[in-house]
């Protein structure tokens, strides 16, 4: 399969009054089209910075990021970003919320709007198009946020701990939900999480990072049965094995 995203020896520092804080050091990895890749590492290690770099929100000090064979210089509507909280706008209906990226990119294509509406229908939000976010449950809101991300039909989805604000029960369900939608729509995804189980349950490939300044500790290809849902994969024999390896690696690192 073709490589859709490539980080080539990326380094990044943050500048504050007190000095320079190195966040990433010489990070390189590749994501192939259709892959689900997770980035894990100790908290505050710069996982989110990797997503911000890919999204074109910040620029690396060294190295480059190549997406669809072009260097990333600014936000690209073929990349969708999903944050920790749903960030739905309370003054907009669900329908108006999911149209937001189309408004921003001034896409007035009626057929695109129709497709987005059909996504709402398809993923159980049909009766909530005209509802306001506060009328929906946490899981439904996160689903609406995913459809908003999908509205510009991106090739790559960046997921920044999108389940961490939910309670454990909902978290497992929404994770399954989001995973199946992403697979259904044939999207490539990069998930940032601090939850090792979540990473193993969802991913084809796991990138473990070291402490700050982060470099790559290990790139781990998971061997769980990919036909199963993330929830089911947690019962896979390989799940425990992978968990142990990653756990030890990350613990040694700390």
């Amino acid at each position: 399969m073709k490589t859709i995203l490539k980080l080539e020896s990326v380094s990044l520092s943050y500048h504050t009054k007190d000095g320079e804080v190195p966040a990433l050091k010489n990070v390189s990895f590749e994501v192939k089209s259709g892959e689900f890749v997770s980035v894990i590492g100790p908290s505050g290690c710069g996982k989110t910075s990797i997503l911000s770099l890919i999204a074109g929100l910040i620029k690396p000090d060294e190295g480059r990021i190549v997406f669809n064979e072009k260097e990333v210089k600014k936000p690209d509507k073929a990349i969708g970003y999903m944050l920790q909280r749903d960030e739905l706008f309370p003054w907009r209906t669900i329908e108006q919320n999911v149209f937001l990226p189309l408004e921003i990119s001034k896409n007035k294509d009626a057929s695109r709007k129709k497709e987005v509406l059909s996504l709402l229908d398809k993923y159980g939000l049909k009766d909530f198009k005209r509802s306001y976010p506060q009328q929906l449950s946490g899981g439904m809101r996160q689903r609406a946020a995913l459809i908003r991300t999908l509205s510009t039909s991106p090739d790559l989805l960046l997921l920044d701990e999108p389940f961490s604000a939910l309670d454990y029960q909902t978290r497992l369900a929404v994770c399954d939900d989001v995973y199946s939608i992403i697979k259904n729509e044939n999207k490539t995804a990069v998930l940032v999480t601090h939850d090792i189980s979540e990473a193993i349950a969802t991913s084809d490939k796991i990138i473990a990072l070291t402490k700050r300044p982060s470099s790559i500790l290990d790139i781990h290809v998971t061997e769980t049965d990919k036909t199963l849902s993330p929830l089911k994969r947690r019962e896979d024999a390989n799940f425990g094995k992978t968990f142990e390896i990653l756990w030890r690696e990350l613990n040694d690192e700390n």
Partner: protein
Amino acid sequence: MKTNEKRSEKQALYLKKIKKNKIFVNILRVLIAVIFFGLWELATDLEIIDGFLMSSPSRIIKTIGELLADGSLYVHVFTTLYETLAGFILATVVGTTVALAMWWSENFRKIIEPYIIVLNGLPKIALGPIIIVWFGNGINSIVFMAFLTAVIVTTITMINGFLACENSKIMLLKSMGANKLQILTKLVLPSSLPTFISCLKINVGMAWIGSIIGEYLTSRQGIGYLIVYGGQVFKLDLVMASTLILCLLAGVMYALVSLAEKLFLKKY
């Protein structure tokens, strides 16, 4: 959750309790006013207090009747209303515009901030003589006074509202490729609507302060003028009547803003 199911007995009881409480509160509200004015009237009738110095409800009503009869009440009310409204609108427009500029350019904000803080601390009445010299002995000075009293607070409230906009939401819009104008119109302005409405509420009060102070300093008509005039010629009936009218006007204006709040803020 709303349901169309038949209400249970307990629910009915609960609703009844709420209603009863509401009636109780309303009765007491009216009662306090009745007792206050009743005692006042009684005390002056029995000459426990001096009606000449303290006035009385009947004298106040008589005075308002006279003002109504010779038509001067309308002139005074209209004058003060005009000054207050003009000052209020000007302050809201200018204050919000300055706050927008401060949001747009961080450097502009940093540069202008100390001036705003100094102006905020300054009692606006101190500028009275300067305003009169610049704008003359008349209605323009008073409008400017009302404007000045409200504009700084508006600027400070609005810029704080704009800056309170969540960073993560701004990030999200940036990741969609939004430019600064889009961030402003799609996010910052709509999310600041509650701040704007509460700012209007503050401004109503501020503009009244400004216009009455302005009338104290220089005027030939208006509610503030009536109060000052009444005090100077020892017509306490006139002072009390004017104060009462002022209370009513300020109350109505505040109620109108509250109504706007209810209409606009349903979704927040």
